[in-house]
């Protein structure tokens, strides 16, 4: 086979890897911000399911994928408020509340989703070639021949990185996750900041789910996220709580999957169970390595991650 033939395959595979990675990118960015203000939300999988479910229903009813996407995003956000209320206002245990949210999302969508199974969407997101940019060799066809939601995720990742590191909002929200008492002394409303960014985390999980059912599948079935919410949580650490590194992580994960499928399609003798394990194993090793490096560099998880805050106590 010619070299150009290989290049075409790689371009197509990576371009798909970006789409698959986008499903992970949204929730990863969302969870980064929730954790940055000190709220660990293990309910990502549940919120994604809820976003996926409502995104699908609204698209189906309105034939408008954009309305559907917005509905999915909002549904994810609303689901996150349960977790916010329990862990911020009631100061409940975040791990258990998050797990409950995941069970809730699965139970809710299975219970109410019965009549929506096995239906199709007539409208989805179409690819949009960006002028000029898409003409860049290789990279252009991988990154700039995508649908509008993917472009939205590029902008979002950059904007959120900017907010986190370059604005007052970012300084304040990081302060809340590092030392809530000190933040309060600085005049920041800790409760409000935590609510806002936990809600943002939910919106983003909803976005990932909605993109899955509207843009990727496109149909609804029980448990359609198949564990992607958990991967997003793992990617947060891989990304060291940085939205731009989340982009790398999400696409890398998508690419590893594409790579192992490509290996299979060309007849490798490596057992497929091992290949299927690869993304998890690589993430595991990457997390361990980053954590070791992180420690050396004095970057670490937000100090008060998972710790409830109460204004009344000293």
């Amino acid at each position, binding site marked *: 086979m010619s070299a150009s033939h290989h290049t075409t395959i790689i371009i197509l595979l990576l371009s798909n890897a970006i789409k698959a990675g986008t499903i992970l990118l949204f929730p990863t960015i969302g969870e980064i911000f929730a954790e940055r203000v000190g709220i660990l939300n293990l309910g990502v999988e549940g919120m994604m399911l809820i976003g996926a479910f409502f995104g699908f229903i609204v698209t189906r009813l309105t034939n408008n994928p954009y309305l559907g996407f917005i509905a999915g995003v909002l549904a994810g956000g609303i689901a996150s408020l349960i977790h916010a209320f329990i862990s911020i206002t009631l100061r409940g245990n975040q791990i*258990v509340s998050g797990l409950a949210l995941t069970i809730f999302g699965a139970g809710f969508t299975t219970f109410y989703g019965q009549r929506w199974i096995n239906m199709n969407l007539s409208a989805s997101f179409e690819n949009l070639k960006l002028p000029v940019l898409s003409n860049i060799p290789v990279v252009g066809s991988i990154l700039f021949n995508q649908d509008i939601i993917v472009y939205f995720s590029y902008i979002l990742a950059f904007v959120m990185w900017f907010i986190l590191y370059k604005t007052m909002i970012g300084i304040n929200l990081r302060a809340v996750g590092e030392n809530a008492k000190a933040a309060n002394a600085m005049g920041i409303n800790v409760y409000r900041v935590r609510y806002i960014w936990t809600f943002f985390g939910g919106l983003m999980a909803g976005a990932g789910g909605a993109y899955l059912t509207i843009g990727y599948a496109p149909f609804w079935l029980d448990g359609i996220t198949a*564990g992607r919410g*958990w991967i997003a949580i*793992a990617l947060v650490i891989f990304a060291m709580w940085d939205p731009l590194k989340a982009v790398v992580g999400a696409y890398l994960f998508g690419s590893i999957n594409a790579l192992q499928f490509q290996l299979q399609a060309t007849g490798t003798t490596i057992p497929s169970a091992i290949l*299927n394990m690869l993304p998890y194993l690589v993430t595991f090793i990457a997390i361990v390595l980053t954590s070791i490096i992180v420690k050396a560099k004095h970057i670490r998880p937000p100090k008060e991650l998972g710790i409830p805050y109460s204004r009344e106590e000293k």
Partner: protein
Amino acid sequence: MIYFEKRENISAKLKIVIPIVSLLIGILFGALAIVVVGINPYAVYKSLFVNAFGSWYAFSETLVAATPLMLITAGLILVFKMGIWNIGAYGQYIMGAILSSYFAIFMPPEISKPLMLILMFAGGAIGGAIWAVIPAIFKVFWEVNEVITTLLLNYIALYVLKFLMYGPWKNPKSFGFPLSKPFPSSAQLPVLFEHTRINLGLAFALISIIAVWFIIKKTNFGYEVRVIGNNPTTAKYAGISVGKNIIIAMAISGALAGIAGMVQVSGIIHFLQVKINANYGYTSIIVAWISYLNPALCLLSSVLFGGLESGGYSIQISMRVSYGIVGLIESIALFSIVGAQIFLNYKLRWKK
């Protein structure tokens, strides 16, 4: 404005009332969710109860489901008390099942039953412990967040199991299906009550609960665990080796999850396959929390959740409702229990 005020002391009455009230709230919201789709919630709950506790057979099946929950929860209580969040019981359970099955599959079946079962028991404990100690070491030496590593190790364990079942451990006589050789009778845990599936595993579970209670209350290690849980920094200043204790506690927790996996394959399934109900690992996290990390209460909540798991599937039969309802009820009850915990320590106050 409404705010919370810390209680001076926690009354025993509240300790009983709050969980019950929050459970009732959960049941009530669950009922609302069911009403929406036009099904009678009373009938659903009744059917759930009957299918979980309504007869000796139903109750025996509830105990069968409760056994792994008790084993895993007992271990989780120990690590949760230290503030270590092992959510890898799923993977530890699988690794325990794999290592104990190794003996059942590859040892000559003639060896005596006690020896075989001891080997399998040890295999289960060691398999689970190794899978828990790995993240513990990373946690202690490099501060790698254990929530994430234990979670990922769950997936890796699952694929190790799949690899073995579709590859080297597949029974050549199973027409290529992913099952191991059936365990010889020497590798099967004895049944305790005739005509049920309750086996010696239940005894393991009860003993482990007592052992964990004893460790926490009566040993120096248990004391240190509690101190670390209250405040790791204080513990360090008090000269407690936090790292060593974390690794030991994780090893115990993983070992118990591994034993649960061994009990499942040796006592219930009698061969190794991909579907060995490792989800007990996740349910146990909930059970541990609902028990307020109290070993005695863990017994009760394991039975309750065992009933929910085992009765839940059966309500489909009588009520024709989707299994999703069980998750719905379970999660709502959980939300209200976690949320209500604050009222143990705080009073609700109103200030203008």
